[in-house]
């Protein structure tokens, strides 16, 4: 009567796994922003753009909980010696915003860590050949890189990247190398155009009214992007972040309000399971808390 676990996983199509692994590199790429490459055999084949992982500094209880991070990219490194398989890695990009990310920023090559993933629902590709506009605010650009690398094979892709200053603009050349047209705007004009990334979006949508939009960034930016797309009937997928303890739908700590939410019949969706990527129309934008202290960059 008892069920075999291997069969069960196959039946459920579960892909996530806990990796006990090591850091390959951890470098500061812009003031306060780090890029960590972690050895993760088999991770790349399973990961889809928009998914995330839960990161833990192994064996330490400080910080206590894992931290969620969007997957920036996956890739292969040549093996250490001939005859060995290439080394598979996953990369995350993070901003130091609190105690947890400060500890992470002090880790080095060879340090043991754990990661749980890939988790959550990723982006869907949309219509082939239709122009794709990706909107990234600060560290919100993280999940867009893998997405761009998937989309460029079938559609023209444009990236609109916004930040407070030039220090918040990351990895733009890497997007360009994929063949993505990139536009940068900063609040202080220190790089690209001075102003909000949403102004650039409005202009692009005049030129490409059929475009499909994908966005990740601070909640006020997402809300503005949503309003722009909603008014124009443009398809929008957003990647959200939330405080999260488990990442697998057990703690129910990371919920957002769904479109059907009312005070009498609340509809809460788990960011980790139903998201982190949502079609904009499935969320309740009127009531999503825009007071959230901007995107903390998965602290």
């Amino acid at each position, binding site marked *: 009567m008892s069920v075999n676990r291997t069969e069960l996983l196959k039946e459920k199509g579960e892909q996530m796994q806990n990796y006990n692994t090591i850091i390959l590199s951890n470098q500061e790429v812009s003031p306060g922003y780090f890029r960590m490459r972690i050895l993760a055999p088999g991770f790349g084949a399973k990961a889809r753009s928009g998914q995330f992982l839960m990161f833990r500094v192994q064996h330490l209880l400080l910080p206590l909980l*894992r931290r969620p991070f969007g997957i920036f990219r996956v890739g292969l490194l040549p093996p250490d010696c001939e005859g060995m398989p290439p080394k598979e890695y996953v990369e995350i990009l993070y901003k130091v915003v609190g105690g947890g990310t400060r500890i992470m920023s002090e880790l080095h090559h060879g340090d043991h860590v754990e990661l749980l993933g890939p988790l959550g629902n990723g982006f869907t590709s949309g219509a082939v050949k239709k122009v794709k506009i990706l909107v990234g605010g600060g560290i919100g650009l993280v999940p867009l890189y893998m997405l761009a690398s998937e989309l460029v094979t079938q559609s023209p892709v444009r990236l609109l990247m916004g930040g407070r200053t030039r220090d918040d603009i990351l990895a733009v050349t890497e997007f360009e190398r994929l063949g993505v047209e990139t536009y940068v705007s900063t609040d202080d004009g220190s790089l690209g155009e001075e102003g909000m990334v949403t102004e650039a979006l409005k202009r692009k949508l005049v030129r490409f009214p059929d475009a499909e939009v994908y966005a990740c960034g601070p909640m006020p930016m997402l809300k503005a992007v949503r309003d722009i797309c909603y008014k124009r009937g443009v398809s929008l997928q957003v990647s959200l972040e939330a405080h999260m303890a488990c990442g697998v739908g057990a703690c129910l700590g990371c919920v957002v309000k769904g479109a059907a939410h009312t005070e009498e019949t609340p509809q809460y969706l788990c960011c980790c399971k139903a998201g982190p990527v949502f079609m904009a129309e499935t969320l309740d934008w009127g009531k999503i808390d825009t007071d959230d202290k901007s995107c903390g960059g998965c602290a």
Partner: protein
Amino acid sequence: MTTSKMANLKRPNLSVEVAGIKMRNPVMPASGTFGYGEEYTPFLDLNQLGAVVTKGLSLRPKAGNAMPRITETVSGMLNAIGLQNVGIDAFIRDKVPFLSRFETPVIVNFFGNSLEEYGEVAARLNDISAIAGVELNISCPNVKQGGIVFGTDPAAASEVVSLVRSRLQKPLIVKLTPNVTDITVIARAVEEAGADAICCINTLTGMSIDVRSRKPSLANKTGGLSGPAIRPVAVRMVYQVAQTVKIPVIGVGGIVNAMDALEFLIVGATAVQVGTANFIDPTAMISVIDGIEQFCIDEGMDDIHQLIGSLQL
């Protein structure tokens, strides 16, 4: 090889019986940290656990509290989920068939918004053969009628336990709150009212402030503190309760590894629950089970009962 050395090579017996529920080992998840079991099957085999304890269920689905619902504190976390759950009907329809595929006993945690609701849920659960026992939550600090009103007053606790007892033939575990002056008074009341076992402790009510915005970190203002920070409090209360009642006690509060679990067993808990640690390491309970077994082997014990209540004073 001598007989005694042969005996040492045998795997120690870890099986325990709590409230009439036979468990292959004394380790189970704490309600609310393990979903409905299914969430963790990618990481561990439910058949390896002593029991599965579900998220707290109510008569009707419950949406839970506003966000933010969780925040990390020093060696702990504060949560105010608000008992979000699918409701008893959806649980029976959607979750029980999955759970009944395992050998592991299923313990259903539940609560009511009123005395009547407690009784009604108990009656519904009593009819489900796949459920080994129930855990009556009279201790959630995060909703107005989440049970804590029943859990902080011995007369009210006695009343709700008696009512549930009258509607339920299955093993009845009662989960107590630490947010009382003297937990032994409540423990004695629920034992007298017919509980088969006591589970303690639920979370400690706490509060955390975002100093920049001057707002509470949680939308609910206060939340329940869990994690290693509360373990010494939990061990003390389990010790006190185990001294007070004759029924078995399940110890819970901040267990991360086997050594933590052993503290609870030594002060008199027959079994333990692992909570917040499941979030940190989805395989934490397996490590706890393996570690308890290894400890028994190292100490030359062939049965876990040699450890339970072995406190030396």
